Structure formats: structure tokens, C-alpha cells
């Protein structure tokens, strides 16, 4: 598949092979350019019967249902569902906060693995894959294309992504909602460390544009547990000032603030119908993706 000899650090062929067993499907009809595996809002040429329609002059006589004419002496045309491809827009957060990692894997590395696997799976089933790197705005973007060569470019972007700068994810979501022309699956891979209210507006905008939004909320286990024994000077990875705090004093209040944020986020994703997945970076990404794919496969066929 790859023309270069250099293996990508974020690709695990064995895991990809296992994940390929479950197709990546959209939760809502897609408008693609070619035939594919995904439901389309239009009638097409798949084998799945959709409805009868009265014949009107100009219709292809090959689509006339002669049996129905025989039974009812009326002319009906048999229509079938259309299957199309989807456009997968990967939105990768490359702000400074993604550089954090208390364990072996940083959040950006984890995000690369998820994004690459999703891109590969989509590409394998003939879907178009594009990527947008987000930090203080759109850092880099590749529009969705179906060709395997394009996937290589996507991998290059992933490989070259370097986390830095603040997060302006909500603004970028609005921008993407306006710029992605057709319905697409927008997969956001981020730690979502931004104002939840602004984020809610971004999600709603994408939903309004009939995009299928999926969010992988990456959290480091240390960010959840906040287990420090000594007084600590916390340096902001996104370039803000440093904060000095004694964990004894601040731990419970940190947990309270985190809890409030997660509560708020939970309400937002429910309201915006976002396919939300909270991911701790010490969890195997294969499990996360399997859960993501299986969850979507259960709702397959909705039009």
C-alpha cells in the first residue's frame, strides 16, 4: 500500500487488520460523488428497493415494473436506494495542551493513532479522507480525497503535526461548518480544553450543516486523578502563565472544577447529538475505535 519504506509510528497493521472487519458507517445519509457503502438521500441503483413511482414520460423503460403493470394496468417505475461514499474530515487538535502525557503516550501521539486508523479504514472502503490541524486557527488542512496517494499525504500531515499554541477549536468548527461543502463525517480528536459554551455553538453549527460529528475527547489519567504529593509549579503548555499550588489545598477543588466541566460537556454532546467518546490515554486505542465502529454499525441503514 505504501510506496515509502519508512513505517509510520502511529500505524499498527495488526490492529488495523482487526478493525477492518467492522465497516465505518455514517449515522446519517451522506452525499457522495461516487457509489459507495453509505446511504444516500437520493434514489440510486443499489439492490435495495425504495418505492414505486408513477411512470412519467422520459423515464427509462428498463426501470418499468411490468409485473405491476400486469396486475394493475398502470405504469409504475421501481426505485432503489442510492449508496454513496462518505467524506471523512479528521479535525486534529494540535494545540500545546495536546503535548501532555503522563504515561508512555502523549495526547498528540494518541490522536495520531486514532486519526490514522480512521483515515485508513475510510480509505479502505473507498471513502474520501481529509484532515485539518487546529491550534490558534487552522494550521494545516487537506480536503477529502479518495485516492490512496492522498491518504499518504494525510499520514504525512499527521506525522508532521507539532502541538503548540492555544486552542481556538470552536472558531475552527464554525469555519469548517461553512467550508465543508457536502455532508461529511467530522471526527474531532482533541482534549476539548476550551469554553464548553463556545464548543456547543460549534457543534450545533456542524449539526445544522448536516454533518455527522464524532468527538474523541482525549484526557490523560493524571488530568483526571490529579495526584501530586508535593507542591507543584504548573507550566501552561499553551503558553499561559505558571500556577503554583499545593495539591493538599487544591486537589478537591480541582476535582470539583473538572466535574463541573465534564457535566457541562455531557449535556452539550447530548443536545448536539455528537458521537462523543471520552478517552483516557492509557486505554488501548484499538478498543476505543472498536467501540466507535461497533456503535455506528448498530445504527446502519438509517436514511
Amino acid at each position, binding site marked *: 500500500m505504501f510506496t515509502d519504506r519508512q513505517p509510520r509510528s502511529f500505524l499498527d497493521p495488526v490492529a488495523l487488520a482487526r478493525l477492518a472487519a467492522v465497516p465505518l458507517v455514517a449515522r446519517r445519509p451522506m452525499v457522495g460523488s461516487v457509489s459507495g457503502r453509505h446511504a444516500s438521500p437520493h434514489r440510486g441503483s443499489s439492490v435495495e428497493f425504495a418505492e414505486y413511482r408513477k411512470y412519467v414520460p422520459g423515464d427509462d423503460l428498463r426501470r418499468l415494473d411490468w409485473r405491476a403493470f400486469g396486475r394493475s394496468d398502470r405504469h409504475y417505475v421501481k426505485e432503489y436506494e442510492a449508496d454513496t461514499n462518505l467524506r471523512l474530515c479528521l479535525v486534529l487538535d494540535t494545540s*500545546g*495542551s*495536546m*503535548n*501532555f502525557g503522563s504515561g508512555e503516550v502523549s*495526547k498528540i501521539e494518541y490522536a495520531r493513532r486514532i486519526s490514522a486508523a480512521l483515515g485508513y479504514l475510510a480509505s479502505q472502503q473507498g471513502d474520501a479522507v481529509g484532515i485539518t490541524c487546529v491550534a490558534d486557527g487552522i494550521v494545516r488542512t487537506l480536503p477529502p480525497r479518495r485516492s490512496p496517494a492522498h491518504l499518504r499525504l494525510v499520514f504525512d500531515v499527521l506525522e508532521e503535526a507539532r502541538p503548540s499554541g492555544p486552542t481556538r477549536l470552536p472558531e475552527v468548527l464554525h469555519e469548517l461548518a461553512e467550508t465543508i461543502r457536502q455532508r461529511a463525517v467530522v471526527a474531532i480528536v482533541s*482534549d476539548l*480544553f476550551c469554553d464548553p459554551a463556545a464548543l456547543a455553538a460549534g457543534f450545533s453549527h456542524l449539526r445544522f450543516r448536516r454533518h455527522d460529528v464524532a468527538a474523541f475527547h482525549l484526557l*490523560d489519567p493524571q*488530568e*483526571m486523578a490529579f495526584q*501530586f504529593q*508535593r*507542591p*507543584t*509549579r*504548573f*507550566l*501552561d*503548555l*499553551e503558553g*499561559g502563565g*505558571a*500556577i*503554583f*499550588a*499545593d495539591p*493538599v*489545598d*487544591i*486537589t*478537591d*477543588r*480541582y*476535582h*470539583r*472544577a*473538572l*466535574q*463541573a*466541566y*465534564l457535566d457541562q460537556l455531557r449535556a452539550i454532546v447530548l443536545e448536539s447529538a455528537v458521537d462523543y*467518546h*471520552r*478517552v*483516557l490515554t492509557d*486505554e488501548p486505542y484499538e*478498543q*476505543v475505535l472498536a*467501540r466507535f465502529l461497533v456503535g455506528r454499525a448498530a445504527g446502519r441503514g438509517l436514511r
Partner: protein
Amino acid sequence: MTFLQPWVLVTLPLVALPLIIHLINQRRFQTVPWAAMQFLLAAKALARGYSRLRHWLIMLLRMLAVAAVILAVGRPLSRGWLALAGGGRPDSAIVVLDRSPSMQAGAAAAGGESKLDTGRRQLAESLATLRAGRVLVVGDAARGPEEVPAAEALPELPTCGPTAAAADVPGMLQAAYDFIRENAAGTTEVWICSDQRANDWRPDDGGWGGIRDAFAKLPQPVRFQLVSYAEPPRGNVAVRVGGVRLETLGRDRRLVVTISVSRQEDGQRLSLPLKVEIGGVTSTIDVELAGREAVLKNHVIPLTRSAQSKGFGRVSIPADANPADNEFYFVYDDPAARRALVVAEDPAATRVLELIAGIAPDKGAAGVDVIPPGGLASAPWDAAAALLWQAPLPEGRDAQLVQAFIDRGGQVVFFPPDRPTAAVFAGGSWGEWTVHAKAVAPETWRTDQDLLANTLSGGALPVGDLEIRRSCGLAGDIVPLASLPGGGPLMARSSRADSVTFCATTPAARDSSLAAEGVVLYAVVQRAIDRGLAVLAGARQVDAGPAAVALAAGAGWTRLAGSAVAASTEVGLHAGVFSVGERLLAVNRPAAEDTAAVVGDERIDGLFRGLGFARITGRAGDADSMVQEIWRAFLIAMLLALIGEGLLSLPRRLARERMARDFPPVEAAA
């Protein structure tokens, strides 16, 4: 608070350990890059009053716990309510014990314990707990501190028992000071057990200042603990007998006595059966006590014809709050002949003095021997009760003769000679004569006691009517009894010997109107003779105390009545009747013991100003010990501090549990 292991307190700075650990912890901070800054900022914004307060409370409780452990290991002692003093186990403990009759209060109640017994028991318990190196007890100022083998033995010591004498608290403190100074005792605690009676403490005594200064200058630390039982007994009645005289009417003899019954507070009318016991015969007299005092004046008690001319008796009342003042001993004898010696160089003065001394106040005979100044050796000293001396003050052998007369109990009144010498006697000496251009009258004189006191009916002597034309200067160790205008003394008593009086003018007409206005001089001379007679008589009343002890020291005393005396050195301190040769002595408590004047706490604080002093208020019959080990209380305090610390720390753990419940791992959430 006192500690048995005070050296442990050296580790008290460890109390700051939690704080130091906190500060060290603050200094060894780590720097970590962090992504979720928004939650940290929110957490910082939430850091409000309670959280901060809780943090410091936890710190405080940790410090308290450490302090409690250290204090508990130091084995703290509680010393009664609020009586806190520094220091640890003393090297010596000196117990100054007030054994006066007023300390006997409380003993009469059913199962009661007197103030003295309570004090001795509590002191024994306290000193045993304190484990003082040496325990000494001062029960008598004259004897000084006596070592006690063990503190527990204090209540049993015979020399710590009750006496009939007033306690000389300043004298006993002086004795304690002498002991501390001479024995170079280390850290010393002086425990004073007393009921704060004025006659025992004598707060006006000039010696207090000296005692205070002396203790303050001691190199070793001395702490004073007053165990005070100042609460007066309720419903206590005291009985006292005075003016005992034997009268003979033909073949019959009768005893005339004045019995007074008194109490310290007004109360209900009481009918007291007075038991009078004379020579084994007991009679009862009912006395009505309506106010504070009832006096049976000149009560006549007929004596049997077979009764001897000399005898003793006892008056008692039923038991009440204080048994020590419920009985009074008296002795009687045929009155001795009134006899005085006159030694004078001026014939005019000699004549007046001879006349005045020779006229007896009753129909008895009164003898006067006029002795020339050079014939003292052959004078009838043994028969005389008073000496009237108008000549240069005695020196050499004459002085020895006069001093022996005084020691025997004789009274001396000195008048100034025509040419005063520099001789000094009993602390007094004559100065120069002063001729007053115009006769002056004495301005002030003491009417409450001594030779110029008011009469029994309260009338004042006409001292102010005297005309003094010439007076002689008087200096030395004297207490003025009457003063001339300008402050010069007219009459003074030697402060070294009560029985020596100086009169600064002579009865001669050119010097004063003492002869013409003879009442004053007559009263002075006859009172001096009476005083001498009281001492010289075959029967004599003495107050228990150092004077009685001094009397007993030179002669063999045989106890005829009264409680058994534990030690021979204690004779004279206990009430009773004693025979000394052919004479009878009745020893009773001093009159001042019957008055309940209590020295105020502020006054006593003032007496110990500048010294380490603490007061513990006790009550007769108190069962509790004054000093107790209280390390358990500190351990409980530590426990409470740790529980409090745990409770304050707990909510944080609960918050984490709540987080785990509300935000389960991702698999479960899915």
C-alpha cells in the same frame, strides 16, 4: 503548671514540627508542564475562607497534638484552681504550718476534719506527689524548720499538732529564710498552710519588708504556695475568763470572775450552758447570747470552806464549729502585797512618787521602799512589783540588778535625772532638758492600751490637762505613748522590754503638774504595780506563745489540767494549768484568737510582691488532693486533636470517592 520531668519541655520547640514540615514541603516544589490549566484556575478561584481556615486548623491541631504529647511526657501536675507556678520538682519543701486555735475550726462536725488536719493531709499528699528532695516543717518560729523523714508522715508528726498559741507567720518565714540561707538549699518551695488571721500574719509588722527583700535576694529560686483556709467557721462561740480574784469575807471565800462569751457574726439568740469546774466541782450557768458578746461581769462563785487559798478551774461551753475556743483555764490565789521601790535623786519627786505608790486602790496595804541610788544591792527586790526610778539610767551592776528585776516580771518607770548621762537602758536614753517658756500640754496619747489607756468604763485619763514646764529629750528604741506639741515624746515604752516605761518629765512642781493633777500619775504608777503583781502573784494567767515557752524553759512545769503536751519544747504552746514551784500558771489562747479578722488576699499578695507566690483556696474537710498528675488529660487532648485533624482531612477523601463514582472508567461509562 508544674512538671515532674521538666527537662522534657526542652523539646517543646518540636511543636513547630508540622509547620516546618509544611514550609519544607513548600520549598521542595516540582515543576510540571500542565495542560488542564482551566481547572487549576477555577480551583484557585474557589480557594475561599473555609478551605484556607480548614488548612490552618489542621495545622494547628497537628501542633496541638505534638504539644500534648510532649506535655504528657513531662508528667504535668495540677495545683488546684488557677494556682499555676513554673518549675519542676523542688529540692526542698518547707511547710510553714499555722497551728493557731482558729485552724481547729471544722473538727467538731460529725466526721469533720479541722482546717489544720485537712491542710496537713493535703500537704502530705501533695508533697508526696511532688517528690520534693527534703521536706521540712516549721511549726514554731523559735524552733525553726525540722526535717520530716517522709512527706506522708506529716499528719502524724507530734510537733505539727494544734496549739493554743497564735502563729507567728513572719517569724516562721524568717526561720525558713535562715534555714535556706544557711543550708544553701536548692530550688525551694515554701508551703504556707494558714487561715489568714490577722493576729497570725501581723501584716503591719515592720519585719515583712525585710523578709521580702531577704527572700528576693536569695540566689536560689524560692516559690511560695499559700494553702488558704480563710473561710470563717459558722456559728462558732468562744469563751474567755478575765479578772479572776479571790475575796475573803470573814471565814467564807469566794471567787469573782468575769466570763465573756462571744461570736463573730450576729445570729439567733442562744442559751449557752456554761460549765464552771473548780477543784472537781462542776456548776452550770446559763448565759443568754443575743448579740455578738455576752459578759458575766464579776460573777461570784462561792468556794467551799475546805478549799485552799490557791487553785484553778476551767470554764467550758458545748462543742461548736471550733473546739479550740470552747474552754478557758483560770487560776486564783490570795492577792500579793502591793509593794513598790522608789529610787530618786530629787527629794520633791521622791516625795510625790512615795505618796502615789503608797496609796492602794483597795483597802489592802501598800508598801513603798525608798532606796537611795547607791543602796540598790540591799533593796527588797523580791517583794516589789514596780520600780520608780528618777536618777541617771542604771549602768554596770545597777543595770544588772534592774534587768534581773525586769526579767522576773517587774515593771519599771524611769523619770529623767537632773543631769542626764549618756547611759542607755532597754534601748532608751535621756537627751537634753528643754524648758518650755509657756507650759505645754500633751497633744496625743494612746488610749487603747498601755499605762495611759482609758478606764474600764471607757473614760479617758485627763492627760491633756497636764502642764509640762520642762521636758527631757528621749531617744532610742522606743514606742511613744504620749507626745508633746512638736512631736517630742512625753511618755514612751521601750520596744525591747514591754515592762520598761520612760516619762520625759518629773513629778516635781517646777517640771510639771503631774503631782498637782495627780490622777494621771496615780493611774500610771498603780497600773504598773498591778502589772508587776500579776506576774509576781502566786497564780498567773499567761497567753500561750513564745513568752510562755520562755517561762517554761527555765523551770520544771507540771501539768495539772489541759491536754497532754507531746513534746517538752511544746510546753507553753498548749492550753492548760501548770504548776511551777509554788506558783500556778494558766495558759490560754491569746485574746486576739477570738476575733476573726482575716487578712485580705490583696494584702497578702502585697506581702509577697516580687516573689513567686501562688494561692490555693482550700476548705476544711476537702477530700481532694491539691496536686495531681494530669498527663491523662493531655493524652486525651492529643487524641481529640488527632480526631479533629482526621475529621477535617476526611472530606477531601470523600470528594475523591465521589469523583470515582460520578466518573467511572471509560469502559463502564460506555
